[in-house]
């Protein structure tokens, strides 16, 4: 049965990858050199965006959150000691930004409807019906996640969805491992119980992901 468990994308399996940046580049970032910082940000921003999206859900403020994360990184880079990889360090800032946003929702809402070049499904997609369904399910999921305590929700997303180790989640959230474990467990139980009671989610929440599993039960 475990053979049928899907393998989550390898990005998180290698989240603790070596920095991948030349020491000179990191030093230039510490000195605040813009071109060096831009180089790092360009490489890391897609990854940071995904972390923010997974913690916050579909939000019109994602771009703003990414901007805030990078701004914090600019201020904090002079103190970066290199004990963790650059990506892990930036992820920690992103998690902190997301938590702050969850605890203090912004009063304003700035939605950018500027034309985008890509990143969105188009009519050429072969499964628009599935995408629409997935969007609805995602919205329902995050409605329930929104009702969790911010730290519980964040811990759950980082551990369960992103597949990070408990110790890593604890480090990203500046918490102890046992506290983090409690948060994950608490979030799971609350979330799963609510999804089970939500008529909109009942079907897909219990839908089996593989036909073979359905036939055997």
């Amino acid at each position, binding site marked *: 049965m*475990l*053979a049928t*468990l*899907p*393998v*989550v994308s390898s990005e998180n399996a290698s989240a603790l990858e070596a920095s991948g940046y030349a020491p000179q580049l990191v030093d230039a970032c510490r000195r605040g050199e813009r071109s060096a*910082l831009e180089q790092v940000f360009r490489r890391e*921003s*897609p990854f940071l*965006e995904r972390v923010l*999206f*997974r913690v916050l859900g*579909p*939000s019109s403020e*994602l*771009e*703003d959150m*990414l*901007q805030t994360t*990078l*701004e914090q*990184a*600019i*201020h904090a880079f002079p103190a970066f000691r290199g004990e963790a990889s650059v990506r892990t360090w930036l992820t920690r800032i992103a998690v902190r930004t997301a938590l702050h946003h969850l605890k203090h929702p912004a009063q304003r809402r*700035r*939605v950018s*409807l*500027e*034309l*985008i*070049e*890509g*990143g*969105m499904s188009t*009519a050429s997609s*072969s*499964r*628009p*019906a599935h995408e*629409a*369904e*997935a*969007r*609805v399910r*995602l*919205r329902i*999921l995050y409605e329930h996640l929104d009702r969790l305590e911010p730290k519980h929700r964040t811990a759950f997303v980082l551990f*369960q*969805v992103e*597949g990070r180790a*408990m110790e890593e989640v604890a480090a990203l959230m500046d918490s102890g491992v046992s506290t983090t*474990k409690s948060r994950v*467990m608490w979030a*799971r139980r609350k979330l799963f119980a609510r999804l089970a009671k939500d008529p*909109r989610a009942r079907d897909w929440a219990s*839908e*089996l*992901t593989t036909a073979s*599993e359905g036939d055997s*039960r």
Partner: protein
Amino acid sequence: MNRPCRDLETSLGRPAHTLSEAERLRLEQHLTACAACRRESDLARNITQLVLAAPSMLSESSRERAIAASFARATSEEARRASTHWLRSTGIAVAAAAMLALGLRFAHQGNDDAALAVASKAVGSQAAPSVAEPPASMAAAAMPTAPAPDQWLDVDTAETRRFAHAQVTLDAHARVRFDAASSTLELARGRASIDVDASKGAPFAVQTSTFRVQVLGTQFVVTPESVEVLRGRVAITHNRDTAHVRKLGPGETYRPSEGVRAHVSHVAPRQVVGTAELLRQAHRALAQGEPATARGLIERAQQSATKRSERAEAGTLSAECSMLEQKPVEAQRAYLAVAERYGALPAGENALFAAAQLSQPSDLAQARGLLESYLARYPRGRFVEEARARLRKLAR
């Protein structure tokens, strides 16, 4: 939940590579016997797959914009901190000077002990730098967001700046100047995309040589020749016709070159590219959970569409709006309309299958009918296997 379940709770639904060999074996044995944990494991896995499969919300240009804006904000924040530090140290020095003066006054009046006490206190507290001039760091970090009122700003490369409560992205070679007293940005050349924080409740305007745009809480794009509103509303006054105020809403464009009393036009039927752009905007609005905004964009796209595929896509998006609004019956109706009109197109096939999936649980006959129609019409279609699997499930 019993003890073995609790012990394994955090392993349920986790990807295999995150578990040790011993954990995997233990988990596998437990799941064989425990239906409750199997269900939880499936749910956890479904949630993970759902979130990981979601497409990126931001485009490359959005991320570039965020990077550029982060530097602008970081620079203005440093300038603000330097200013606060300078003001604080200036204040300390001024207070110390005042105390020293007070001490000298006491000395003049013959109160030596009090004078010495005050003077020494003044000297001791003056740990701040000289107040003769602001520190060099502040001069170097001059506010990039607000040049002097009569000072033009020429931008060599695209950048984002803050003017009062508006975030303004200027294209390369734009020329602007900002009057903070009236919160008016004067645009002499180039293109500006403006995002105003409506929650401040404060006015903001853009002035060109031809017209003035008064912001009512919005996002819009302005050049010296045109204004296009992306979100919210603006009021436009032509410089030569100040009595006549035009209001623009989302998707509307104003061009004074059409005449002094040029009517406000909805997004004019542009070339095909325009319709495609509208449809992309509608996709984005849906992704952000704004079906009302999406509907407006879809309507405009339908007016300007010249291709059947574009009309089919607009119809599909309209159905998705209904799904977001949790109106499955309406959504199904919209999908069926697309399936009927555009059956020969991929969108038609997709729509018929989507309509079948939206059949109510109480109406199995309809679900079966639609799935069978799908299989009959598209015997080698993309969703044949799924349609057959669903029919088998309905038959149980």
